[in-house]
């Protein structure tokens, strides 16, 4: 992908401009909070999508909200692009620096500001790690529900910016369902509060609009999260199936039965094998697909539901069925799933993680299409799947050191996402568009919708200094992409397809 294709074009600095800007930055922040020589910048050159790397002009590490405001005012005046960064675990290049822009790291904002156990909320700084919230409130029997697999590293600010999910979001919701308020510094450096502890916030639901907005609308400086009581008891079932279709049917039946499991995850045989080799979770490696189903609540309730789910799994043809006998076994069964990405990392020099979501009824067909695409490109694909909510993570295995393989992997990934769109799904369930899926945005959205997105951006950031060129492609880019690419599943008369 051409990284220089899009950037904001109002700031075209000369060497002297750059120097002048760095001097001004230096007046706003202590010397050790501004990094600008290539060596110190290197750790910030990429996020979790490490195939894209670029150095910014500078990295700033402010410590106070006032410093963030001052930085934003300076950047607004000179129209310098600003990319916010939490932990840099994002998988779509959202925190990839922009050349001649600054990378604003929230790494020093790691305080839990307020905690109210009775009202069950905590107000935290954006750089607080996801898991640190649950750890800090555990003594009150509470926790923060969204649990991305990256939770030991990723920050709550990044979670809000991506609307992150986790294996428990089927029952407990995504980030957007679990936050009450955020504080924002706007592109002009103004401080505004969105949402609140009281419900029915007046005006538009800006909290929803900001969640998942990928750092395009404002800098998040605090987040008030909802806390939930820890479930008293949890049980996990592991089932092995002779086919992916059978496992998919079981998922539908469980939900149709009126049971919303706390987690419902599927892995195909290759992913199961990789995870088993890595953590020895005790997975049946002869199964074509495995399903992990967690139930939680009070013990009597969990026991009753476990019985029902067992019956459903059996009736759907499970040939391996196991219920964790104790907490240690439950943790071990989950460890395999949670380590699925690194496990795949062990069997291939590189892997490329996709994030499409589909209506679940099309699962078997989509997996079949993926396997055909995998053959077409001669690259193996391993599937990890948030089965309950239809979020697929096909992992494409490749070797970046082999000439052209990265490009092939990207092309294969693009086609997989287009299949998701064709099936009525979306190109990203939780990882965001970032820089990675700009072309696929052109497939998912027609021009009027894209124009509307740009108008929304413009309402918050008229000079486009916040993460410019990410998340929403320009119409120009889509026109170019369209010209060299025949959209799959698109009717010749798009204006008619809605009827």
């Amino acid at each position, binding site marked *: 992908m051409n990284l220089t294709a899009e950037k904001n074009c109002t700031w075209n600095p000369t060497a002297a401009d750059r120097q002048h800007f760095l001097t001004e930055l230096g007046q706003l922040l202590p010397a050790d909070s501004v990094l600008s020589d290539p060596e110190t910048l290197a750790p910030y050159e990429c996020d979790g999508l490490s195939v894209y790397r670029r150095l910014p002009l500078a990295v700033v590490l402010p410590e106070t909200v006032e410093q963030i405001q001052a930085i934003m005012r300076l950047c607004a005046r000179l129209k310098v692009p600003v990319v916010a960064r939490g932990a840099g675990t994002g998988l779509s290049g959202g925190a990839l620096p922009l050349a001649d822009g600054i990378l604003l790291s929230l790494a020093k904002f790691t305080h839990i500001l307020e905690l109210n156990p*009775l*009202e*069950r909320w905590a107000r935290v700084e954006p750089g607080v790690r996801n898991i640190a919230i649950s750890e800090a409130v555990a003594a*009150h*029997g*509470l926790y923060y529900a969204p649990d991305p697999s990256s939770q030991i590293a990723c920050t709550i600010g990044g979670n809000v910016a991506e609307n992150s*999910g986790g294996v428990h979001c089927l029952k407990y*919701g995504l980030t*957007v369902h679990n936050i009450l308020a955020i504080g924002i510094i706007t592109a002009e450096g103004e401080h*505004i509060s969105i949402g*609140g*502890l*009281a*419900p*029915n*916030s*007046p*005006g*538009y*639901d800006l909290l*929803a*609009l900001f969640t998942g907005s990928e750092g*395009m*609308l404002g800098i998040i400086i605090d987040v008030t999260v909802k806390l939930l*009581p820890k479930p008293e008891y949890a049980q996990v079932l592991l089932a092995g199936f002779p086919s992916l279709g059978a496992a998919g049917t079981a998922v539908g039946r469980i*939900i*149709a039965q*009126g*049971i*919303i499991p706390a987690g419902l995850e599927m892995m195909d045989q290759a992913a199961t094998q990789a995870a088993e080799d890595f953590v020895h979770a005790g997975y049946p490696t002869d199964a074509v697909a495995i399903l992990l189903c967690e139930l939680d*609540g*009070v013990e*009597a*309730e969990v*026991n009753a539901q476990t019985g029902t789910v067992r019956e459903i799994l059996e009736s759907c043809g499970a040939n391996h069925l196991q219920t964790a006998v104790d907490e240690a076994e439950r943790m071990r069964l989950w460890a395999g799933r949670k380590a699925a990405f690194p496990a795949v990392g062990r069997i291939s020099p590189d892997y490329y993680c996709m994030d499409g*979501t589909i*209506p*679940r*009824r099309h699962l078997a067909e989509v997996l079949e299409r993926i396997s055909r695409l995998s053959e077409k490109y001669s690259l193996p694909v391993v599937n990890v799947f948030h089965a309950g*909510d*239809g979020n697929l993570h096909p992992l494409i295995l490749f070797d970046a050191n082999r000439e052209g393989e990265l490009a092939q992997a990207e092309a294969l990934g693009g086609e997989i996402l287009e299949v998701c769109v064709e099936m009525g*799904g*979306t*190109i*990203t*369930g*939780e990882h965001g*568009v970032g820089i990675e899926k700009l072309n696929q945005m052109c497939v*998912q959205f027609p021009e*009027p*919708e894209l124009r*509307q*997105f740009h108008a*929304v*951006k*413009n*309402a*918050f950031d008229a000079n486009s200094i916040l993460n410019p060129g990410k*998340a929403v492609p320009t119409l120009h880019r889509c026109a170019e992409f369209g010209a060299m690419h025949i959209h799959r599943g698109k009717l010749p008369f798009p204006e008619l397809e*809605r009827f």
Partner: protein
Amino acid sequence: MSDTDSLLALEKQVQTAFESGTPLSISAGNSKSFLGTSSADTALNISGHRGVVSYHAEELVLTARAGTPLAELETLLAEKHQMLAFEPPHFGPGATLGGTIACGLSGPRAPYCGTARDFVLGTRILNGRGEYLRFGGEVMKNVAGYDVSRLMAGAFGTLGVLLEISLKVLPMPEQELTLAREASASEAIELMNSWAGQPIPLSATCHQDDRLTLRLSGPVAATSEAKRRLAGDQMEEISNDFWPKLREHTLAYFNTPKNLWRISLPSGTPPLALTGAWLTEWGGAQRWLRSDEDGARICQIVAKAGGHAQLFRAGSAATEAVGPPPLSEPMLAIHRRLKQAFDPAGILNPGRLFPQS
């Protein structure tokens, strides 16, 4: 009129209004017209654009056109033992899906399951230029583009005419149980909050007139265990019908010539020193006040407690306008720019949500 015709007619009407700068007042069932007023006198009626587009019970997703009566959807869902978990108030037999989402109102289950916006997965709208746009979709997780669909919830039609909405639905609980006991207002607020911090399947709470009422929902094993822990044997078990009456404001409490205020607060706020009759629900976070006290004083005291007040239904002695509370200056500026982004000519329900919206 066929679906296509009704859609084309609406599209044409908005496009014409955009060109001529004619403000439109969007309506369907007129059940919530008491909530805020728009200055437009040309009506855009969407009640003809109705019908369920798809319902996939196994995937917990329902898509219907905005003019579909809410009652029709609830009947359809009940056949599969599913429900709209935010328990939307109808406030009249004509309530439609579009009006429900546009007003963003939720019922007694909201603090425990989520509000209207939490269940919105996708929308199809006409923006203020009359452009037909689709956002979100029918899947549970979707972060492609800004979340314009959820933005529509509670926007009172000022950003777009809702045409079609996809919602997440949930299974109906296996059992529901309503229990009541005596409690003072402050004791009730304390209890509602501390219960919500324990693994108890609460699905609604209400306090009025020294009486605390709660609902437990879930598998029988869970509700009976919770009843035991809450010493439910010593409470009176009453009919579950209490909750629809609360939701629809048909409890005797709501039958009053006085002003009815909706007071939104941090859930643990102790009772406020405002005279009138109180009804507290949503675990303490949403409270109703029947009172003829001066509106400015009510707003001031509520704001001091970290909340906001809205005159919900005007009584005979009302001096304030019914409608959402005002926005702060910087927020108002953002709201105006956002309005401009969707509706540059300012023709969609102007003034319904904030001045010049």
